[in-house]
């Protein structure tokens, strides 16, 4: 008799374990409030990315089209992938002294891994990470960007 008892017990346990799982999936089937997926392209406006999110490197400009980059190439040296290329020029100031300044800040988004090392390395806080993450384009060459706005110049007082 104990054999049959044991057999029935095994079958009971097996069936109840299966029913437990079905109860759980049944719960989620009937409770649509638990749904966690987002309707992504529709919720673009309400999408809230944290301010530290690393989307791409940008060179910040103020209203007067001034940036803080001195062209020191610290970011270029810090970058492990050669993502940043800085072309410098020598400006001559009023006193006749030559001074190194930024000419073009080239940023290869296609090479960037968003490791943030350039931002950490920047001594003047000129560059920062932007929250934009929709980078896809049809032509790879569009991913090579010039970060300094045309006609922009160095902010006063940034050394």
């Amino acid at each position: 008799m104990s054999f049959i008892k044991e057999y029935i017990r095994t079958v009971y346990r097996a069936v109840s374990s299966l029913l437990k799982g079905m109860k759980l999936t049944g719960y989620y089937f009937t409770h649509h409030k638990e749904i966690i997926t987002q309707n992504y392209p529709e919720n673009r406006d309400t999408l809230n990315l944290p301010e530290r999110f690393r989307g791409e490197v940008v060179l910040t400009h103020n209203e007067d089209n001034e940036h803080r980059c001195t062209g020191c190439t610290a970011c270029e040296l810090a970058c492990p992938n050669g993502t940043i290329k800085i072309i410098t020029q020598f400006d001559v100031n009023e006193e006749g002294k030559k001074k190194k300044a930024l000419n073009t800040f080239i940023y290869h988004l296609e090479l960037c891994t968003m490791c943030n090392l350039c931002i950490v390395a920047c001594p003047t806080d000129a560059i920062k990470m932007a929250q934009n993450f929709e980078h896809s384009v049809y032509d790879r060459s569009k991913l090579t960007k010039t970060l300094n706005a045309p006609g922009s110049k160095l902010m006063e007082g940034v050394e």
Partner: protein
Amino acid sequence: MIEEVGTSTDGDLIINIGPQHPSTHGVLHLVVTLNGETVKKVEPHLGYIHRSIEKMCESLSYRQFIYVTSRMDYLSSHINNLGCAHAVEKGLQVEIPERAQVIRVLMSELTRLASHQLWWGAMAMDIGAITPFFHAFREREMINDIMEETCGARLTMNYMVPGGVMYDLHPDFQKKVKEFVQFFRSKFDEYDELLTGNVIFQARTKNVGIISKEDAISYGCTGPVARAAGVSCDVRKLFPYDVYGKLQFDEVLMEAGDSFARYQVRMGEMRQSLSIIDQLIDNIPEGEFQAKTKAVLKLPKGEYYSIVETARGELGVYIISEGGMTPYRIKFRSPGFSNLSALDHMARGSKIGDLVAIMGTLDLVIPDIDR
């Protein structure tokens, strides 16, 4: 090169599982010799995602090479970065501030939880249950959000730097983590209801893919794979780093060494991780989050080996320095590589379905194996 594989001379069937296959979790290629449904031999062919990270690191400076290691075991990238940071710090002889140590441990445990959650879902999928995968991602998503807020990225964070961490914690960090822990505790029982207790799941994993304690040591298995066989190998206990020495947690050990034991070890580890987070989250000391280090790091001539416990086992980072700005030679002892070498031993004599289940419980991450 994929050689001509067909029917071998003694009537066995040779099939290629992978490199593109739903259950190899990436680009693992297994050449399996079958006798009917029974596995006679499993031969892993590696290298489909070999990027020669070791060679790459030889040309990167000590600050730069850390980010590359996120790409090895991408599921526990924090812990990989931590291992590298440790090795560099050993050479630099810097003292890490208490706050940075606590942050590192917190991040490591959150990463471990996220990694185990993904493993749980992926393993269930290997065994044929698809729903758990999505349930696991719900909790993992919360960890990713926490990571995103503090570290700025969701998967390859690059948050650990030599001397500490890159930034201080986000002001909301403690609140969010507490919310997550509470939520996860309430959902953890669902994991058991959905999978652990399920009679089909137990039938599929018990007494399958058994590895003995001696074999586990000999094959160099570490992490949950070895602990399921009864090998005490938790680096956090054996060679405590950061603040692990001061924490109260148990090393989850099982004796059976089968797939179900490996499953239970990981489930137990998730509970231990939660308890570690509980102990630390209210006791983050004030202070610096980064020790002062020079802008250009140079390690003195010598050899530095650091060990950390990733979600998959023991990660060793072996740096040989000649005193320059870049490592002379760097070697990553990845846990998955050794665990994979035991797959043939475990899977022989089992069915194809079991092979897939065993691979699931080994928790292989292919970039970690190929590097």
